[in-house]
């Protein structure tokens, strides 16, 4: 055991002295997470400025404007009153407002009669969603008016005399649309960009240590270091354990540092410390097993580099380290669960959105450990051969 610790300490010292290891283990993941946080600062929320042109000034137009200024809508819409449709078009075109709503002259009169009329939303090809939301808000506003008109028309079509239209219209004003949408908050918080990408980048760069460690193993073997170690009374298993231990310690330190820096500097929410720590530890175990597997599969330093890079990029791509996996098609979300990083990112997402604890990460941690078990079992046999070869 002592020999394993000596080997691990030597490897770690070498790693710390090598600046590219520090860059990969700490600087790069923090820099990328910071960049994402900066880029998407404010993009976590949906809010837009809506230009409003009131050419009617009647009671229905005033009611519509008051509706747009309700507290619930103020969270997503800021109103900017504009003088004319021409000005509104220019403001939308130049993206000073995301969309505009034009209330035409005579709108109130038409709305309170049975004449047809139309509100206009002005939209830009670069911000169709703002126009769609504006259209939805306006449509919800006029929905009751249209429902009342449809009610009168249906009653007449089913046999009521046309002469009773005015009476029916008066009766219809008391009606209310029978289907209503009711909001029920779940108590979950939306996942912040930095809370997803801080662990995602930390995991990606943790995986880069697979290439680094396996390459250094073959570099040492090429220099005859492994043979010299074996000449001493050191069991091959101790050599392997020493290597594995250094990867484990470096991995834990790297993840821990990125966790601390991104949480303190950019407000990344990694979730409850005990649960997040458990996910990190299980992920490092998976990294250790993958490193051992690459050492077992490769024959040369170059081969180790190649296999490790392929493994890392495929895991990162499939597991969701580059894209927010929640918005990916369901087949990709399922594929992600074949990777330890996919499970880890699911665990971090659940921790930060629901504020859960150990029970939240139980299944992901077991899945990561199962992956590690399978990879580790194959690796032990192959890597042992690499040490004794």
């Amino acid at each position, binding site marked *: 055991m002592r020999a394993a610790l000596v080997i691990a300490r030597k490897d770690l010292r070498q790693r710390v002295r090598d600046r590219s290891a520090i860059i990969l283990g700490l600087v790069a993941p923090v820099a990328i997470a910071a960049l994402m946080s900066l880029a998407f600062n404010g993009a976590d929320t949906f809010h837009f400025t809506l230009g409003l042109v009131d050419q009617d000034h009647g009671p229905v137009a005033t009611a519509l404007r008051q509706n747009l200024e309700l507290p*619930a809508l103020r969270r997503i819409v800021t109103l900017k009153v504009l003088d004319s449709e021409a000005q509104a078009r220019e403001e939308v075109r130049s993206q000073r407002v995301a969309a505009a709503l034009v209330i035409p002259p005579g709108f109130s009169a038409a709305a309170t009669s049975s004449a*047809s009329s139309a509100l206009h939303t002005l939209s830009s090809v670069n911000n169709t969603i703002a126009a769609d939301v504006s259209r*939805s808000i306006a449509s919800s506003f006029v929905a009751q008016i*249209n429902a009342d008109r449809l009610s009168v*028309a249906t009653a007449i079509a089913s046999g009521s005399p046309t002469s009773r239209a005015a009476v029916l219209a008066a009766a219809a004003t008391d009606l209310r*649309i029978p*289907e209503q949408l009711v909001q029920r908050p779940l*108590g979950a918080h939306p996942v912040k960009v930095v809370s997803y990408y801080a662990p995602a980048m930390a995991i990606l760069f943790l995986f880069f240590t697979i290439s680094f460690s396996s390459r250094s193993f073959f570099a040492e073997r090429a220099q005859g270091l492994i043979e010299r170690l074996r000449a001493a009374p050191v069991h091959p298993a101790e050599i392997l354990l020493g290597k594995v231990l250094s990867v484990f310690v470096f991995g834990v330190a790297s993840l821990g540092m990125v966790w601390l820096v991104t949480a303190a500097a950019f407000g990344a929410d990694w979730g409850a410390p005990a649960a997040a720590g458990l996910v990190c530890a299980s992920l490092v175990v998976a990294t250790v097993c993958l490193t051992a597997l690459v050492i077992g599969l490769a024959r040369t330093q170059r081969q180790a580099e190649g296999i490790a890079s392929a493994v890392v990029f495929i895991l990162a791509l499939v597991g969701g380290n580059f894209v927010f996996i*929640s918005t990916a098609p369901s087949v990709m979300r399922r594929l992600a669960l074949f990777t330890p990083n996919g499970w880890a990112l699911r665990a971090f997402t659940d921790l930060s959105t629901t504020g859960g604890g150990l029970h939240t990460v139980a299944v992901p941690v077991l899945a990561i450990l199962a992956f590690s078990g399978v990879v580790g079992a194959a690796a032990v046999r192959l890597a042992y051969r690499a040490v004794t070869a």
Partner: protein
Amino acid sequence: MTPIAIAKASLQRVVRDRRALFFMIALPILVIIIIGATVRGYNRFSVGVVDLGSGRAGHDLVAALADSSDLTVHAYRSTASATTAVARGEVSLALVLPASMDAGLRAGRSVAVTALTEEASTTQEAAYNAVASVVASQGSRLQAARFATSVQGGTLDQNLSRAASLEARVPVVAVETLQVDARSNTLPEGFSYSTPTMLVLFVFINTLTGAASIIETRRLGMYERMSVAPVRPRAIVAGEAMSLVTLSLLQALLIVGTGALLFGVSWGDPLAAATLVVLWAVVAAGVGLLAGTLFRSPEQASALGPTLGILFGMLGGCMWPLSIVSPAVRAIGHATPHAWAVDAWTALIARGAGFAGIATDLAVLVAFAVALMALATWRLGRRLV
């Protein structure tokens, strides 16, 4: 002829390296597929639906939601799975259609459709408004049918059919959308987004990591040995530059071809697109050549190359459209050549621009290419003398 011989030797070394081929060919295609499948739906809200046995009213509502241009509907089997999906951000909100919905509406009662939402999410608030509009429109038929049944008789189903057929004919207060411009600032969704941006990203990363072979050649003393022969330093630099430009061009052409044939990407004006591809290959080669003089070891090049490449790609709009970030980040992004290349692809693909439409972007890329090549040639040449 000497530069060509040097370039040929460098190219042969890369072609024999299976790892390099993986990064040049397989990885970019894989990333294009994954990003292309993921980066879509920015203009729609994803909405979950749990049907607890709502009957016809529920089915009609789901059909109306699916027809809405603002919404993408996903069905969930249980409230628990829909709740998890909302919490994870897989959908903006989830609707629970109650078991008693159809029966309740037929019995003349009002029915509440629950929308499960996150807290403090304005995205969900916007999705909520889009769904509320569909629910209101759907409910108006029911209101009309119930009113007609109460004043004139007949069955609810008969009057529902009448209301549905009348809906298009009754004069309404409509909400019409008028598009005021046609100048798109972003690439289209899907593969038309992922293919050009990944071309920009991977050609750059590839030459950056390709610097490792220049460093290795330097380390092995190959350049010194070449200098013993009647080979001028300028020829060596030209040979290495030619090799990197050729590699970049091959990779870019592979991505352009794959994009056009497999993913249906229309690359726009052929002359302008070809100029852009060649120019980007020269910019990337300049960066690779410069990196070959800046990095100290091949390990450093393989470690820092992808990291720098990803960082530049993020800043330059390869990972997400720069139109969605703040103006300050957008301005910083334009300090990278990536942003100008992505702008040019956007103009060609999204707006159908020609050579003149991307002249400014091309001019900036020429400036990048000249500056990088000059600096790299000077530094590499100095090391060879």
